[in-house]
């Protein structure tokens, strides 16, 4: 098959575009009008007026958060029974389905004879987690969910990325349990 030649028609600059000046003033007009509009709106905001008009698209991050969709997969939590104990029955479904092998469950007896088992320990390594959400889908008891809306996950060491059952049942409001600072106990 012969190669097809495409001739691109480049627009020729006319005289006024070649001497730059009108185009420069057009550009300056756009930015300058934007400047005065935003200055006006900023001033109005300071005086408590025109709150519905935005002067900047910036989200002031630590104070303001971008709204997240409720179906966004964020940090995990373990749901609780009415008495505060975990709903988890240590069926090992999530541990088995997890492609990253980041869940470690040690099963134990549950005091209630109607419930077969309860986790002695439930450890989740966020350093390995790939946020696929398979654990949530696999769980028959609705015991694990990824709906905390926490996505500020950072720690100073790999050990701090490992969450225990206590943390999973009661997620820290800051996002991660702040235990150490550069490996030192604070």
């Amino acid at each position, binding site marked *: 098959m012969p190669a097809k030649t495409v001739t691109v028609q480049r627009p020729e600059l006319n005289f006024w575009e070649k*001497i730059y*000046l009108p185009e420069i003033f057009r550009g300056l007009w756009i*930015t300058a009008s*934007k*400047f005065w509009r935003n200055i006006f709106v900023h001033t109005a905001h300071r005086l408590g007026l025109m709150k519905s008009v935005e002067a*900047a*698209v*910036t989200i*002031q991050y630590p104070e303001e958060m971008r709204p997240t969709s409720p179906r966004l997969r964020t940090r995990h939590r373990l749901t609780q029974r009415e008495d505060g104990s975990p709903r988890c029955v240590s069926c090992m479904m999530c541990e088995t389905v997890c492609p990253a092998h980041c869940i470690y469950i040690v099963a134990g007896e549950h005091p209630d004879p109607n419930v077969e088992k309860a986790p002695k320990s439930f450890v989740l390594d966020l350093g390995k987690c790939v946020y696929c959400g398979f654990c949530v889908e696999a769980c028959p008891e609705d015991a694990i969910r990824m709906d905390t809306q926490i996505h500020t996950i950072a720690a100073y060491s790999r050990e701090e990325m490992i969450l225990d059952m206590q943390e999973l049942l009661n997620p820290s409001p800051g996002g991660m349990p702040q235990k150490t600072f550069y490996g030192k106990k604070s």
Partner: protein
Amino acid sequence: MLEQLAIKTALSVIMVAFVMSIAGLLTWVERKQSAVMQDRVGANRASIFGFRILGLFHPIADVIKMVMKEDFTPSGAQRFLFTLAPVVSVTFAIAAVAAIPFGPELQAFGRTISLQVAQLDIGLLYIFAMMSLGVYGVILAGISSNNNYAFLGGLRGASQMLSYEITLGVAILGAVMVYSTLDLQGMVMAQGKHLWGLIPMWGIIVQPVGALLFMTAALAETKRIPFDLPEGESEIVGYFVEYSGMKFGMFFMTDFIETILVAMIMTTVFFGGWQVPWLFADGIHWPWGGVVAMSHGVVVGLQVLSFVFKVVAFIWFFMIIRWTLPRFRYDQLMRLGWKYMFPVSLANIVITGLVLVLIG
């Protein structure tokens, strides 16, 4: 004699304080103005005891950072020239401001004080000399850094600034011919007249082409976008690659001081300096008749304020240009300088001369 010395010292202190404080503020203005132009908020995080006052602490934080930072000299650099380069840049930029008149003659304490640091008959030539010497800072930094990119930046800076210096000088000759003086105070005085008693005879009215050419060439002299070829931060970083700490800070300040200097020259030569339209020594004479009488102090105060206002307006305009236009390519820069601006400035002189002869 001693009183003269004291007055001159006071004037120079005022001028240096004005220029340096504006230059310090410009780091903040640049961030905030660009942010407002681009629908952003801009730097607002530096705080003292929780007070942020629109991010005005950022210049202070910058200075502290600059001073505390390691002052590094690369191996193989020529230490003396390496240290000299930023000093040369900043010194000549500040020295040029001395010839700018920021007010008329003030009658106070039984003597006449001209509000100008250096009353030079050749003020304009002095300013050009100082601006040309500023090139040495760029070249010395490029040569002494022992870095190929710095060397390239220095070369580019030298050729760009020399090319535009010619247009700079020729473009302003038209204004010199109209006012027939090189004294800047005399130039401002000459702009106090009014056409038909209505339009102030500012340089922009009598020399519009000269003003435009001069502004373009002067912006090229400040080495900021769209003429930042010596810097070229996305490709070669430029003549100050190897500088850190306050030495870099001095180059940074030089850019801002030169912006202020250019704004001052534009104001003085083309926008009536400290002149206020229809304001004469005894008050405002409205063009439609009627006089608002004012005392000498009020008139001088208004005129100094008008000078400051015009300078600030020009700085704002230069900032808008810097944050709007993209950079020229090197060949475009040279073509613009030599093939368009230089001939047009020559034609401007010829036409100005013809018109002056015809008017008589």
